[in-house]
């Protein structure tokens, strides 16, 4: 991803919702982030983490209590939603039920006062883009969920916004349709070249679609980075836990050099582990290792640590081995299945556990 122009910049944004009585909710707590032009940027987190609130602040439906949001360098705080060159794809689409597909898509352009011919031409382009030409005269209640989704996209893209906001747009679709729409969304982003800000609680969706991800929890951004960085090098326990399956091992810091630390695991071995940016660990730490970044071997002695095979679960594409390391706790290893057949491991076996280089990552907390 080339470092393009900055499209959206949030500086110390705080949003407090006044609840009933004196219990105020800090939906966003001093959030800062930078989103570049043409980026597919995802806000990922569990429900209630503040991701939708951040989106609504950018759209203009809410206003921050503190901090500012810049769109291409200028503060958008004074602009009401209908003056912001930003459009939203709503979670339940919010299509106008009293209008046809065509009228829905043309609504934004019409409100901008574009001439009729231009609106019609643009609507046709949009219908083609989302492959909905045959259904242009239908009411939005007469089309399926996936089709409504595409109309909602076309409606939001039609006025050529500088930034497109997507609020969990795929959550109402079934699995198969969601997969199709993920590909469709990537295609649309590629073809239109518009900056997408995508909100989701689905980590798989975030990993497959995004250029960069910001993981949020309790109104704060915990980590920002490419899907690979987030997945391979989670900086905090929450991030490691929220995205994918993870193994945690306890250990002690022996020394650090050049973004790496030597850790003496409780299980005995000394390994090298990556460090979060600007973090200097000391004393006891937790390291994470992804299940597919470790292998089990029959030869107990040449493994990094030793463990007992507790359970074997077959998943079709791969097999999960549940292990009990000698130092206690649990450890899961994922092996891809081969055509050669079973690997010949059995429950109760004593095995060696070996980690790939750079597999381990120290957590900040």
């Amino acid at each position: 991803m080339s470092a393009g122009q900055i499209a959206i910049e949030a500086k110390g944004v705080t949003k407090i919702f006044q609840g009933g009585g004196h219990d105020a909710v800090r939906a966003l707590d001093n959030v800062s982030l930078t989103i570049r032009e043409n980026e597919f940027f995802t806000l990922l987190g569990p429900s209630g983490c503040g991701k939708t609130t951040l989106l609504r602040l950018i759209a203009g439906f809410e206003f921050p209590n503190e901090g500012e949001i810049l769109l291409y360098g200028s503060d958008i705080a004074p602009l009401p939603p209908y003056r912001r060159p930003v459009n939203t794809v709503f979670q339940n689409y919010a299509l106008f039920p009293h209008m046809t597909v065509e009228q829905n898509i043309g609504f934004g352009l019409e409100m901008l006062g574009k001439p009729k011919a231009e609106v019609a031409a643009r609507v046709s382009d949009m219908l083609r883009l989302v492959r909905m030409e045959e259904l242009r005269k239908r009411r939005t209640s007469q089309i399926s969920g996936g089709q409504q989704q595409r109309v909602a996209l076309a409606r939001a893209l039609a006025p050529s916004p500088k930034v497109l906001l997507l609020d969990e747009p795929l959550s109402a679709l079934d699995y198969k349709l969601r997969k199709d729409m993920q590909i469709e969304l990537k295609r649309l982003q590629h073809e239109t070249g518009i900056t997408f800000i995508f909100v989701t609680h689905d980590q798989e969706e975030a990993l497959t679609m995004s250029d960069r991800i910001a993981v949020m929890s309790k109104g704060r951004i915990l980590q920002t980075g490419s899907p690979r960085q987030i997945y391979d090098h989670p900086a905090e326990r929450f991030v490691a836990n929220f995205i994918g399956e993870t193994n945690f091992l306890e250990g002690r810091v022996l020394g650090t050099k050049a973004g790496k630390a030597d850790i003496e695991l409780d299980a005995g071995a000394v390994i090298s582990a990556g460090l979060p940016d600007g973090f200097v660990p000391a004393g006891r730490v937790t390291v994470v290792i992804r299940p597919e970044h470790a292998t089990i071997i029959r030869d107990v002695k040449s493994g990094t640590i030793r463990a007992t095979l507790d359970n074997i679960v077959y998943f079709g594409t791969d097999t999960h081995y549940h292990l009990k390391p000698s130092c206690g706790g649990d450890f899961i290893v994922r092996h891809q299945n081969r055509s050669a057949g079973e690997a010949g491991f059995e429950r109760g076996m004593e095995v060696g556990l070996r980690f790939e280089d750079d597999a381990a990552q120290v957590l900040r907390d």
Partner: protein
Amino acid sequence: MPRAAEFATAAARRDIRDRWLLSAPALLIIFFAAIGPLFIVLLYSFMVKGDYGDVKFWQFTSDAWISVLFERDLFDDTVSFADAHLSVLWRSVKLSAATTLLCLVFGFPTAYFIATRPERQRDVWILLVTIPFWTNLLIRTFAVQELIRNEGIVNSFLQWIGLIDQPIQMMFTEFAVMVGMVYVFLPLMVLPIYASMEKLDFRLVEAGYDLYAGRLQVLRRVILPLVRPGIVAGSILVFIPALGAYVTPRLLGGGKSLMLGTLIELQFGQGRNWPLGAALSITLMAIVMAALLFYVRTVSRGGNRNG
């Protein structure tokens, strides 16, 4: 499988029988309380009037219907056009339409206000709107009288602050009738609009703002089309009873601002002309139905154009 088919037909037959049984009470009420009396009214309108009220049974004439619009000369029996009834009719339609419009102007913002309150507060507001219903219509109308009569609160206040020297004549004018009717019928406009508005998905309003529609455009292009059913229902609920209103025009309008309801009452009372009263009643019904048809059609056509 003949057995399955038999079961299916038996079940279907049972279904139909149950349906008739369940709807029987409603059908009975509709027949005895609506269709039957209506038929009697229609019958009476074609009979000869009795000397002291009532009708002479089984003596048929179209006199009553002729006198709705015409006048029979006492001496030479010639029939000539008379606009006495027509002008009452026109005043009724005019005042009812104006009342409906005013109720809409006041009722729509009220309904919007209530629908946008937090859920727990809404019931309280609705309760407040319906409070006037708890009191007898007569009492409420007298209360309006107390407000607008020459020595009433409004005139006294205006005189006290020195804005006027002489009281403004408000009682026994069309204005008084309208004030009274708007006051009485306003809840009937607010409630159906509120019912539609409450179902309105306010995310659609946000979607409107998001797509560059300002406040007025969101109102016109998003909110109004979606609460149209409520507006139609409210207008019908106000217009129809306003057209046949009796107590309010009688007490506030007096003899000068006669409306259809009072006119009909006169025929059954002092006028002792039951057939004419019946004919006027049927005329009123015909007007209501025509107005309804016209209104519903224009409104739904408007919906297609805007929607």
